[in-house]
C-alpha cells in the first residue's frame, strides 16, 4: 500500500530539518575528523565570507547574472523561433535538424574556446555560451510540443476552416507551453553553468572567475561562497520560470 501523503506543514518542515541536520553534521564533524579548513571550510566560515566580502561577491555576481539572463533569453528565443520555422517547413527541418543535433554533440567545454576566439574577452562570448547551452533542449522540446496536438484536434480546426496562424495561436502554441516550460526550467540552471564556464576560460570578473581565483589561492571559504551564490542564482531563475509557468499554464 502507498504511504499516506504528508501534511502541508510536514512537507515544508521535513526538508528544512533535513538541510539543517546536514549543515550541523558538516559544522561539527569536520573539526572532529581533522579536515583542514583549506580543503573543506565549515558552513559558518562560508557564511563569514558573505559578511566580510559582500561587496566583492555582489561585484562578481552582477556580470554572471547579466550573462546568464541574456544567454537564457537569447538562446531560448532563438530555439523557439527555429522550432516554429521547422514545424511549418518540413523540408527545412529535414535538411537542417540533423546538423543541429550533430552540433549539440560537441561538448560545451570544447566549443567555448572557439566562441571566445570569435567574440573576444568581453561579456559577449559568455552570453553566447549560455545561449548555446540553453538552445538545444528548448529546440527539441518546442518542436515536440508544437507537434503534440492530436489528429482529432487538427481535424477540428480544419472543420472550422482555421488559418495556419489560428492553428498556431490557438492550438500548437498552447499545446507546446508545458513542454517549453519544462525545458525553460532546465535552462534556468544550465544558463548559469554556461556563463560560469565562459568566465573560467577567459575572464577576471564574475562568479566563474572568482571560483578559479579562489581555488588557485586556496581560499576555500570564498570558493564555497561563490558556489553557494551561483546555486542561488540558478534557484532564483528557476523560481521565476515556475512563477510565470503557473500564471500561463493552467491545466
Amino acid at each position: 500500500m502507498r504511504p499516506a501523503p504528508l501534511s502541508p506543514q510536514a512537507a515544508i518542515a521535513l526538508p528544512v530539518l533535513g538541510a539543517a541536520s546536514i549543515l550541523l553534521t558538516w559544522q561539527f564533524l569536520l573539526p572532529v575528523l581533522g579536515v583542514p579548513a583549506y580543503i573543506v571550510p565549515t558552513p559558518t566560515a562560508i557564511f563569514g565570507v558573505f559578511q566580510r566580502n559582500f561587496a566583492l561577491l555582489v561585484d562578481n555576481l552582477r556580470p554572471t547574472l547579466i550573462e546568464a539572463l541574456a544567454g537564457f533569453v537569447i538562446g531560448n528565443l532563438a530555439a523557439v523561433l527555429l522550432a516554429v520555422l521547422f514545424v511549418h517547413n518540413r523540408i527545412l527541418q529535414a535538411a537542417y535538424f540533423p546538423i543541429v543535433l550533430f552540433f549539440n554533440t560537441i561538448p560545451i567545454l570544447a566549443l567555448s574556446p572557439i566562441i571566445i576566439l570569435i567574440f573576444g574577452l568581453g561579456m559577449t562570448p559568455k552570453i553566447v555560451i549560455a545561449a548555446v547551452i540553453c538552445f538545444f533542449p528548448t529546440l527539441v522540446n518546442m518542436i515536440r510540443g508544437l507537434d503534440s496536438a492530436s489528429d482529432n484536434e487538427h481535424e477540428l480546426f480544419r472543420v472550422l476552416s482555421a488559418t495556419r496562424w489560428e492553428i498556431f495561436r490557438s492550438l500548437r502554441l498552447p499545446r507546446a507551453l508545458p513542454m517549453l516550460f519544462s525545458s525553460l526550467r532546465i535552462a534556468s540552471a544550465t544558463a548559469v553553468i554556461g556563463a560560469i564556464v565562459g568566465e573560467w576560460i577567459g575572464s577576471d570578473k564574475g562568479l566563474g572567475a572568482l571560483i578559479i581565483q579562489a581555488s588557485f589561492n586556496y581560499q576555500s571559504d570564498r570558493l564555497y561562497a561563490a558556489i553557494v551564490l551561483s546555486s542561488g542564482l540558478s534557484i532564483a531563475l528557476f523560481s521565476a520560470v515556475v512563477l510565470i509557468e503557473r500564471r500561463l499554464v493552467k491545466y
Partner: protein
Amino acid sequence: MANAIETRGLDVGYGGRQAAVKVLSGLDLNVEAGSFLSILGPSGCGKSTLLRVVADLLDPLGGTISVLGDTPHAVRSRRDVGFVFQDSTLLPWRTVRDNVRLPLGVGQVSLTRSIEDRSDELLELMGLAGFGERLPHQLSGGQRQRVAIARALLGQPKLLLMDEPFGALDEITRDRLNDELLTLWRRTGTTILFVTHSIAEAAYLGERVIVLAANPGRLAKDIDMRPFKQDGNRCSREDPAIVAAMAELRTALERAS
C-alpha cells in the same frame, strides 16, 4: 424532400490514386435533408472515412459527392457542417464556455456568414448552465461530450457529423445522451450522420440505419426504421419491432464482418 448528401460511385482510399488502399468503393448513398442516419459496420469498413469525406477532411479518389447541393469544401467554408469526435477534443486550457466559443475565434476569415455567440443558450440546452467557467478536466466524460456537441452546434450547422461520440461512455450516460440528442435533433432539424459500433444505439437513434461491409467498404444493408417508430422518430428500446430490426441488423453486421 431534397437530399442533404448524394454520393455516386464514391471511391475513397489512402496512398494516392495509383497505389491506393481502397477504404470505400463505389458507394451510392442519398441522405434526406433533416433526417437522422445511423451508420454501422465492422472496424475498417470506412464509417469514419465517409464522415471525413463529407466534412472535407479527405478528398475522394473517384466518383462524385454533393453535400447540401454543393461541394464539401464550400459547405465547410460556410461552416454548415459540425463534427463531434469520439474523444470530446476539448482544449484543456480553455474553460467550458471558451471551448464552446472556439468557432467564434477561428476560421472567421473564410466564413461568409456571421456567427452569433449562443454559448450560454447552448450550455443551458445541454444541461451545463453553471459549468461555463470550469475546465474540461473538472467534467465527467458525458459532460465533456455535451460540451463538444454544444461547440459543434454554435454555428447552427445544417449537417452534424458524429463519429462514435458516445463510444467511451457508460451505458446509462449513453442512453441519457441518446435521448438528449434526439430532442436536440427534433428542435433543430439538423441532418445527422451518426457512426456507432452499437446496434442498439443505431436502431434507437436512426430514422434509417445503413450497414457498411469492409474490404473495401460498401453498402451491405439499408433499413428504413420509420415504419417501426412513432412520429418524431420516437420508440421504446424494448419495442418488439425495434428488437426485431436489431436482430436483422446484427445478421447484416455479422455477414459484413
